[in-house]
């Protein structure tokens, strides 16, 4: 893997979004990944709709939670994703109003990624931002810097938040993942969270996945 990488500098990441008081992190993690995949395969960065997933992905539970793997399948079944503008976010479940005619992106498949963080970094640099799920221990009060909680406090067995890996690197010899969160840009470092890389911190390597365009 290259020494460091950041898709934000390469135009593959939309601005930080805000899920509001709703457990819809899974939808933001997946749209972030599909936005990256569509940019890299089709050259256009489009901000895609999470509300469509909340309303129309009947397998997942909207604000009560969901899984990226189910969401990819729903996008395939529905026939694609509309843009944020066409199907804007409300932060609570509504009646599905998806229109295939308005879908601007589609996906063909989705894949599970390796749990080896070195290989994960290589995959990210080669293929784009990655949907992951982590233990959100400490994130309620996170302000800045590279988080590295003690393993018992941030166990990989208690995954409860889905986010998007957009890059990685080192800050004064501390390896990190750059993670796009969906709690607004007034949280963390302009909406981003930095987590220690290479130690499986908070289960960051346990549920890595991506859509395939």
């Amino acid at each position, binding site marked *: *893997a290259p020494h460091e990488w950041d898709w934000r500098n390469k135009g593959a990441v939309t601005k930080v979004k805000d*899920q509001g*008081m*709703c*457990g*819809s*992190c*899974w939808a933001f993690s997946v749209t972030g990944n599909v936005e990256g995949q569509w940019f890299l395969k089709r050259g256009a960065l489009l901000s895609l709709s999470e509300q469509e997933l909340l309303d129309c992905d009947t397998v*997942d*539970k909207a604000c*009560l*939670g*969901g*899984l*990226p*793997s*189910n969401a*990819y*399948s729903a996008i395939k079944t529905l026939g694609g994703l509309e843009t944020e503008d066409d199907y804007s976010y409300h932060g609570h479940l509504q009646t599905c109003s998806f229109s295939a005619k308005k879908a601007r992106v589609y996906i063909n*498949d989705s*894949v*599970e*990624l*390796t749990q080896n963080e070195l*290989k994960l970094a*290589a*995959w990210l640099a*080669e293929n784009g931002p990655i949907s992951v*799920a982590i233990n*959100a*221990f*400490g994130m*309620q*009060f*996170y*302000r*800045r*810097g*590279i*988080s*590295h*909680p*003690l393993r018992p*406090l941030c166990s990989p*067995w*208690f*995954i*409860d*938040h*889905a986010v998007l890996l957009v890059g990685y690197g080192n800050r*004064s010899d*501390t390896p990190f993942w750059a993670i796009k969160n969906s*709690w607004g840009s*007034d*949280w*963390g470092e302009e909406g981003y969270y*930095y987590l*220690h890389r290479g130690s499986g911190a908070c289960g960051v390597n346990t*549920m890595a996945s*991506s859509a395939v365009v």
Partner: protein
Amino acid sequence: APAPSSPAARNEAWVSAFPELLGPARYALEMYNHGRAAGTRAALGSVRGRVRRAGRGMVYSLKATLEEPPCNDPTVCQLPVAKKTLLCSFEVLNELGKHVLLRRNCRPVETKVTDDRNETLSSVLPLSNKAPLPQDFSVRMVSIFKEFVTKYNRTYETKEEAQWRMSVFASNVIRAQKIQALDRGTAQYGVTKFSDLTEEEFRTFYLNPLLKEKPGRKMRLAKAVPDP
């Protein structure tokens, strides 16, 4: 004082026996019952306490039994809940006449209050209970809370709500300190826009319990990136 027989009598006897604990104990109970409808609120059973000076205030370390009322209303609890007794430990700071709930820890126990006088209760405040409480802790907390309310444009419907939120905020400041002390990276923890939410509220509104409960749809494994 020995615990009198009936709960009502107990309440009366309790008051007369520990007048200086009444204020903090009542405040802790008020915070515990925050948001509960009449008829669903817990009542205070026996109280024991320890007081120590802290800055210009006093920290009350209370060990109390709370009597949770039975619940048969299906709209309130899915299954009927029999009357339950909880053993709670509270830490309440009283400074310049203002109470701040610093810690609350409750669990169901038998009705008999165990006698564990040697337990040090205030392991949370501050991180080691040896360090003295900063001066004017409560006053500083109020000013930090005001900054938080202004910065994040918070509004609370009632004075009680604001008071409750401030006590949650104070507990969260201490929780953030603890997380900071235990982090091995370079992260900084402190006041964020979520600092007036309890851990339960934050978990309920912002996190995603399904991620650990359900395996999700099986996907094929991606091909590894070829070695250049």
